[in-house]
């Protein structure tokens, strides 16, 4: 077993498109009239992963576990508290705004609520073309051509370039958000719950579009979502987060077939499956709620809800280790080698 950042290959070959090491983002909590710092929200508390070219990494977990913060921090839309962010092997952690500019072109974001992220006073065409203007790319005529092309590519009629955000449906707004993200021909797109607010028939349209674009343009995605079925569908590999930490990460099939973390096991069994007879499967129902990231439980963050917790879990933080080839997990059950099926230890 090795204790390193997951998916680090033997050091040879080109650097991955994106690598994040021990990333932390803590938000200070202020109190009183002098705004004294009275605590921290440990929103992201040491996550590591890499994303290769053309690859999709899914980031899944329940609300408040730090998915959006992780996405925003790795794009440096939020200043990291600790850790390292590397793009094509270059450390961008401490770059200033001007130095970040070329990297901004490479990395774009798509949001859950396109409406909130689209300027209501700009036409759809202006919104999509704005990144080109900001980065001073191309002549106005070329920009217009590019925007027209982008509209067609995401399945919007070109006449709609003159319309304003409020005139669009939720699905169409998401298409505008995607077109805008594509304007600068990025290599990586962080999609934060891009289909969570959409009805299922529209959700399917957007998921298909994202996958087609990836094939065509060789894009890499960090796909953030709380819906495990959607994440499994679109991703190559999946990382499961709980209270600011990645608890398990591996390829999507292994995650489903042999979940090693008790939280992953519970998540999988909680997802309702649209098939008759699915109700009869054996399931793990967790008790209680996710604790607050202001005062995460000591030891394993999950021990307050884990059906298999034992003494060590309450004071010793489990490390993310490679327990099986390409399969990383942080759980004391596997400290002395992988133990399956997951079960309460006899001594506990």
């Amino acid at each position, binding site marked *: 077993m090795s204790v390193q950042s997951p998916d680090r290959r033997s050091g040879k070959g080109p650097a991955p498109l994106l690598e994040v090491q021990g990333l932390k983002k803590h938000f200070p909590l202020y109190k009183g009239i002098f705004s004294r710092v009275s605590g921290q929200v440990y929103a992201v508390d040491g996550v590591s992963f890499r994303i290769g070219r053309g690859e999709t990494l899914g980031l899944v977990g329940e609300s408040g576990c730090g998915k959006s913060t992780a996405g925003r921090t790795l794009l440096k839309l939020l200043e990291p508290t600790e850790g390292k962010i590397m793009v094509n092997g270059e450390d961008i952690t401490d770059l200033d705004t001007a130095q970040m500019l070329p990297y901004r072109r490479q990395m774009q974001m798509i949001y859950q609520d396109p409406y909130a992220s689209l300027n209501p006073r700009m036409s759809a065409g202006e919104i999509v073309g704005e990144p080109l203007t900001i980065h001073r790319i191309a002549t106005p005529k070329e920009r217009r051509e590019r925007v027209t092309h982008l509209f067609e590519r995401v399945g919007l009629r070109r006449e709609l370039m003159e319309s304003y955000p409020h005139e669009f449906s939720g699905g169409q707004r998401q298409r505008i958000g995607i077109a805008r993200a594509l304007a600068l021909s990025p290599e990586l797109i962080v999609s934060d719950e891009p289909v969570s607010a959409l009805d299922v028939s529209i959700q399917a349209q957007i998921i298909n579009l994202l996958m087609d674009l990836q094939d065509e343009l060789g894009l890499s995605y960090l796909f953030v979502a709380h819906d495990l079925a959607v994440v*499994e569908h679109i991703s190559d590999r999946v990382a499961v987060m709980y209270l600011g930490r990645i608890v398990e990460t591996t390829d999507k099939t292994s995650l*489903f077939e042999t979940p090693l973390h008790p939280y992953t096991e519970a998540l999988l069994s909680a997802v309702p*499956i649209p*098939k008759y007879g699915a109700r009869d499967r054996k399931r793990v129902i967790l*008790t209680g709620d996710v604790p607050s990231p202001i005062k995460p439980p000591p030891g394993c963050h999950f021990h307050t809800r884990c059906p298999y917790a034992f003494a060590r879990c309450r004071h010793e933080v489990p490390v993310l280790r490679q327990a099986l080839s390409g399969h990383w997990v942080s759980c004391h059950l596997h400290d002395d080698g992988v133990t399956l099926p997951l079960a309460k230890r006899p001594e506990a």
Partner: protein
Amino acid sequence: MPDETILEIENLKTHFFTTGGVVRAVDGVSYAVRSGETLGVVGESGCGKSVTALSILRLVASPPGRIVEGAIRFAGANLLDLTESEMEAIRGNEISMIFQEPMTSLNPLMTVGRQISEAIVLHQGLSRREAFDQAVEMLRRVHIPEPERRVHAYPHQLSGGMRQRVMIAMALSCGPKVLIADEPTTALDVTIQAQILDLMRELQERLGTAIILITHDLGVVAENADRVIVMYAGRKVEEASSKDLFESPGHPYTMGLLGSIPNLEVAAHTNSRRVRLTEIKGMVPSLADLPYGCTFAPRCGFATDKCRADYPPLVQHRPGHWISCWHADRLLGGSS
């Protein structure tokens, strides 16, 4: 399962009279719930699921809304003929309802214990003391830890899952015959959703309450409903047992919905780049400006001229399996 119908909606039409025209939110919907069963109602947002439910309790905002036609039969009466005070005796007592966001129906300024006991005092004529004790008992039944302490909590002091438990406690406190649950778990995380659905199943087994479970999530329906109603644009387009609906859906819309959601099991074993989800092209039509004929025709891959000319009647193709589609026989594969 007892086969006795407890609540029946007949040809319900609830329309909204707006400046933009008449919105036919519910346009001739019929369904019946039997005692002790869970009836799932599915469909995408805006198809009329909630307005149907609110119509049952006569809670549709009027104006602009009005129930223009139909009947709602419950305990030998048509609820649409009752006076407002007769209706009040039914709401929360015989038929109760829980919503997606409990905060909208909980009073933020009152402890949960007082809210539950007020309902009990109102409907069961118990003393305040007795009602309060019963409120504690109800919190215990919905598995709220330390109910004696939590009974004094205000809604904002509870998590989303706990608040939904409180709503369920309140809704069941008077032993209703029917519980209408409108997207009860949509705002919750999936592990909390599993807890709440588990609780609803447990209470149903114990109390025999009939449940109308409204949701947009076909997975939730498959795992919880005995029978299913599929709605599209203000109408029921298919009705079947869960088994029939998921194993041999007959309406193109139902088939489309089932194809458009990723299935966890399948997704985990296929290379996503090669498996596309089935798209239902286009969007739901405006309820103020519905197309002629079958309202699904503009999005339907099987539509013919007949479909575009006339709305298809609801026909029973197999026992208990009703479909409103001109080509359902062909789509079902004729294997009946």
